[in-house]
């Protein structure tokens, strides 16, 4: 057919008309609509091969098992593991949001860095690892050459007993400085209390799952105490089935209607800091009614009855002390809890079959009071709940091998003889091994900082210490600070040099005995992804640094890398025998296994065991039968000591040097030396005028906000309520009655002032707050990190005026006098 003009036009018109009848124009328009939405900033996640990597969460000492979902090399989701003994399936919100801590680049240091801006400004420039090592090593060997290695100090936030912390301690010793300090934690209180009363060095082991009456003194069971995955799982178990026939009853002793307090079967609200008195009041009722476990008390305890010491002096016992001073009426005056409630608590506790009294202060990331702990532990002893299923277990320590003995050189041995700056372990604080608040004070008060070089590992004391901002001022005085933090935290921003650690998802690390767990567990977290940036496992950094310093220090670390050290220590697990490296959810680790040493190990050689630990991430020994009483308590009396002979000795030793009166005063004790050996209550010495500061401020912790040195994953801010944080202001929870005194409405902007400083917050009227107390949430108020975390709310630590806990010297952070001023 010839193409004429006419049929050309016809074809065009026909074509156009025809196309209209097809779906084509519609389809094209539809597609255009979708294409126009493909804005370059809406990401299209790449896909690939899916896989799961089992590891262990290392964001808190809880150490829950995690399964990380991956697509090719990208980690896309963290989930709880069901094949891990600590947490059958669940993790806490912080652990759940962990990928943001890995992938949010602006939270992290992407390589070794040197500060270029002002201190605290967070401006750094990237350098090479070689340069970084040269700079630190140069500084340190300079100090060693000058013969002042004690001017090196380290703050180590890694949990006690982990291999990296063992290495850091070793490095400090090898270099020759005694000034190794740790941020306080509840485990310090547990350690001292157990040492004094039981003579044991094993971590605290509460057999919560088997208990039928959990009397928690301040432990934030649902706020993140211990391993959150474990405690919350127990919580779910306790509430299974018919509530009328519920087996386990939970009583929470706390001044605020926290989640734990609200969700418990009973909530008792004593004034903050009087938990110990309440425990002693309960003890009074139990002793008076004669319902205590007389067998345990007579056979396995000492110091209950009055007695006469070898030198012929009469000493009062726990019984007399409690009966005289802690009647329900007397205790009611101290605590504000009615005598009736005290009696009913005692009744509940003694009538339960396997009750346990748990001690804590919120999460485990801050210390408690030694005497409070002793009071609570005395209750467990009275009921015979020690070394009994459902109570406090006394398992053997975890059998990790010690590293070979370290021989220090002359410089180091001279340096190690200098007194510790924090006075921990001296006569004044005989049982403490680290008092960072004292350390801070010494530096703050000095004209020239006694610390020249500070190494900071896995800690952010600038933010987390309850010291009224003291550490920050101490940092300002320290000439050279090195941070090993993977994150751009407040302390790191003050550092001259950053030798960044890899995050917990990029490195191998061990988790030694999660807080409060009733059986020994060694967890191994492993790299889920290759390090994203030029970072290095701090374990390896320490080894490499030691070699860079000098030969003598380097020779203390004869291992190729950190993983080798892990294996050296794990050797002990194999030698001890009897551990498992895999977990079957059908036989929970807390269920009593067959008598004897438990199940047969699944491995025959160390290599086999190590392989098992690497793939499963764990070595543990399920709960076994109560241990034989023989040799169980390593106290001077060989028994559980209501009245600690170690304290008596310490007081005597100190009294030999100065007068007894001065000794007691220096140790912070306001009672007689007899009483000082036992759990007792002492009103804190505030020294502030209550007419100027009529209120008390109590920081509180939340499970959905990281309160330790780890930044909160941005996801967590979704879970924060608008009356906890609104834009840049966090809220103080106060009772409406207290608010009415100051004529404050919901949302009012106020300044909370203490002798240590002031913070601006909004008011949240909360019936769950005890009148007279101002509750400030911990975890807000970062001045570092990125826009997700920075400048949101205030950090109550900045206005804490901490006293010292008697004997232990740890900060009393729960009793800050404050006033509220309208802004």
């Amino acid at each position, binding site marked *: 057919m010839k193409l004429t003009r006419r049929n050309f036009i016809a074809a065009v018109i026909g074509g156009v008309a025809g196309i209209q009848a097809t779906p084509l124009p*519609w389809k094209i*328009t*539809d597609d255009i*609509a979708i294409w*126009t*939405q493909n804005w370059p900033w809406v990401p299209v996640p790449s896909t690939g091969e899916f896989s799961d990597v089992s590891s262990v969460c290392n964001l808190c000492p809880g150490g829950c098992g995690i399964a990380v979902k991956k697509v090719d090399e990208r980690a896309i989701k963290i989930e709880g593991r069901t094949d891990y003994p600590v947490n059958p399936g669940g993790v806490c919100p912080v652990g759940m949001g962990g990928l943001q801590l890995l992938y949010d680049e602006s939270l992290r240091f992407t390589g070794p860095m040197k500060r270029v801006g002002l201190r605290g400004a967070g401006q750094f420039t990237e350098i090479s690892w070689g340069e970084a090592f040269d700079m630190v090593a140069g500084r340190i060997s300079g100090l060693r050459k000058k013969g002042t290695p004690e001017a090196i100090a380290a703050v180590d936030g890694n949990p006690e007993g982990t291999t990296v912390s063992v290495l850091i301690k070793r490095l400090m010793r090898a270099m020759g400085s005694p000034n190794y300090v740790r941020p306080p934690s509840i485990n310090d209180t547990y350690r001292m209390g157990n040492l004094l009363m039981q003579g044991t060095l094993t971590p605290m082991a509460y057999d919560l799952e088997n208990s039928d009456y959990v009397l928690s003194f301040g432990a934030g069971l649902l706020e993140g105490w211990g391993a959150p995955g474990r405690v919350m799982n127990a919580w779910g178990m306790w509430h299974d089935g018919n509530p009328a026939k519920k087996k386990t009853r939970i009583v929470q002793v706390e001044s605020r209607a926290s989640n734990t307090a609200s969700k418990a079967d009973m909530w008792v609200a004593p004034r903050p800091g009087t938990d110990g008195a309440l425990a002693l009041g309960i003890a009074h009722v139990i002793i008076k009614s004669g319902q205590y476990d007389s067998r345990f008390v007579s056979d396995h305890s000492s110091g209950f009855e009055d007695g006469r010491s070898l030198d012929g002096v009469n000493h009062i016992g726990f019984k007399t002390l409690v009966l005289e001073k802690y009647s329900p009426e007397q205790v009611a005056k101290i605590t504000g809890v009615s005598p009736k409630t005290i009696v009913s608590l005692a009744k509940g506790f003694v009538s339960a079959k396997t009750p346990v009294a748990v001690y804590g202060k919120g999460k485990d990331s801050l210390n408690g009071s030694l005497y409070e702990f002793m009071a609570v532990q005395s209750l467990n002893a009275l009921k015979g709940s020690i070394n009994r299923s459902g109570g406090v277990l006394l398992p053997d320590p975890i059998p990790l091998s010690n590293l070979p003995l370290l021989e220090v050189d002359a410089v180091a041995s001279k340096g190690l003889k200098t007194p510790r700056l924090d006075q921990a372990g001296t006569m004044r604080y005989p049982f403490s091994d680290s008092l960072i608040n004292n350390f801070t004070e010494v530096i703050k008060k000095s004209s020239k900082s006694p610390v020249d070089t500070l190494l900071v590992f896995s800690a952010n004391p600038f933010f987390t210490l309850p010291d009224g901002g003291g550490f920050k001022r101490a940092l300002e005085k320290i000439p050279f600070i090195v941070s090993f933090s993977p994150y751009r935290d407040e302390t790191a921003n003050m550092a001259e040099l950053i030798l960044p650690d890899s995050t917990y998802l990029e490195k191998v690390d061990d988790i030694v005995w999660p807080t409060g767990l009733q059986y020994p567990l060694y967890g191994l977290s492993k790299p889920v992804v290759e390090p994203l940036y030029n970072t290095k496992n701090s374990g390896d950094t320490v080894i490499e640094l030691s070699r860079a310093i000098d030969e003598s220090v380097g020779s203390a670390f004869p291992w190729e890398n950190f993983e080798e050290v892990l294996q050296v220590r794990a050797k002990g697990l194999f030698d001890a025998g009897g551990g498992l490296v895999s977990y079957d959810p059908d036989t929970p680790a807390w269920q009593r296994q067959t008598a004897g040493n438990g199940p047969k190990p699944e491995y025959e050689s160390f290599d086999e065991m190590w392989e098992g630990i690497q793939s499963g991430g764990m070595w543990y020994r399920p709960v076994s039968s109560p241990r034989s009483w023989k040799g169980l308590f390593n106290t001077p009396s060989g028994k559980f000591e209501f009245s600690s002979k170690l304290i008596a000795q310490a007081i005597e030793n100190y009294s030999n040097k100065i007068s007894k009166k001065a000794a007691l005063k220096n140790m912070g004790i306001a009672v007689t030396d007899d009483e000082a050996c036992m759990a007792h209550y002492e009103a804190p010495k505030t020294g502030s005028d209550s007419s100027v500061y009529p209120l008390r401020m109590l920081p509180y912790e939340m499970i959905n906000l990281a309160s330790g040195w780890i930044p909160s994953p941005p996801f967590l801010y979704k879970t924060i309520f608008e009356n906890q944080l609104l834009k840049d202001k966090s809220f103080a929870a106060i009772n409406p009655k207290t608010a009415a005194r100051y004529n404050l409405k919901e949302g009012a902007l106020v300044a909370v002032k203490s002798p240590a400083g002031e913070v601006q917050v909004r008011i949240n009227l909360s019936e769950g707050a005890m009148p007279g107390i101002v509750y400030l949430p911990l975890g807000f108020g970062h001045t570092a990190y990125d826009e997700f975390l920075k400048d949101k709310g205030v950090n109550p630590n900045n206005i804490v005026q901490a006293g010292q806990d008697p004997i232990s010297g740890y900060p009393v952070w729960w009793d800050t006098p404050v006033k509220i001023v309208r802004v």
Partner: protein
Amino acid sequence: MDSPLLPHGVKRCSTWAFFFWTLPWLALLAWGGLSAFLCLWKGLNQTNMSNIFAFALWIVFDLAIIALGAGAFFTGFLTYVMGQKELKNIIKPAVIIGFICYSGAIAMLGIDIGQPIRGWFIFWHANIHSMLVEVSFCITAYLMVLAIEFIPIILENRKLEEIKELRIFGHNLHEIMAVFAATGTFLSFFHQGSLGGMFGVMYARPFAAREGFYIWPWTFFLFVLSAIACGPCFTILCTKLTEFFARKKLVPDSAIQLLAKISAWLLSFYMVLKIFDYLGWMYGIVPRSGLTFESFFREGPYGVYLVVAEMIFCGILPAIILMTPKARQNQGLLITACLLNCTGIVLNRFLFIIVTLAIPVMPFDRFWSYLPTWQEWGIGMAVVGYGFLLFSAAYRYLPIFPKERELNPITE
């Protein structure tokens, strides 16, 4: 300057005066243009709307102007279908007001939706169960009808009329206007109704939920009725406003009075039904949801006074004034009554949109307050500016008041 464009035989202000007159309205349009640009470019975060206030100022504006614009279809219906010749004197301004209201509303909706590019999905993926689909179909179709009704009015311009083809076209269009008027009436009826239905069908929102007839909740009928009760009043108000600025009479009183009388009857009828509606709601849906009447008027600025204002001051009172011949013949009272009537309907729409969303249904949920941003006001005000501009231009260049020459003979 523009005198060749002005209609024959009427007096208009100078070009400069007109230019200055347009300035404030152009300013509003500029404000709206900037707002629209920001909302389209950066997204709806420029507003203070939220997941609670998913509908806010713009939807109140939309519903209000659509109700007020109902004068167009209803006057058209009365003029062309019912044959009320008297109303020919006012039909043209009514149509223009309608066109302004509807085109303004659609423009606002285009910005209000989160994905303007996908707006046409309403037609492409239409969900026939959605009242909003019915609204969209009818509004779009009716805007076309309004445009068709508007065209012959434009073609009456002196210059355009000189073109023969256009004149014939306009004339022919005019001849078949009754068909469009009827179509418009049908479309309008359904979208005014479905706008009400939109709220009535939200059965999980006890404040808005209504029972009804077949698939139409009572709000369907109430919205139609209230729209045609206030539409004529709005037309009267616009005319009076034009007369005020033009400083001359433009529409014979008979037309105004007829509209006012019709409005009075409709408003009275509406008020009776609305009272029954309130009672039925208060004693039916509300207690069945476990709530009381007061529970909707306890939070924030929303009090029972709103209902009192809606029903008594802006409902019964104007109905009585308009119903009384003596009263409505008084210019002041007539204007007051028309104003109150229009306010009442706007208030009704406001309650249905804002209070429905503001008062949480879950007993543990909290109340949030809402204040529009300048961007939101900008878009709303742009419609006002657009309305003034278009209407003044129409008045200036088109013979929209047939009796203007007669009422204002030019004496040279």
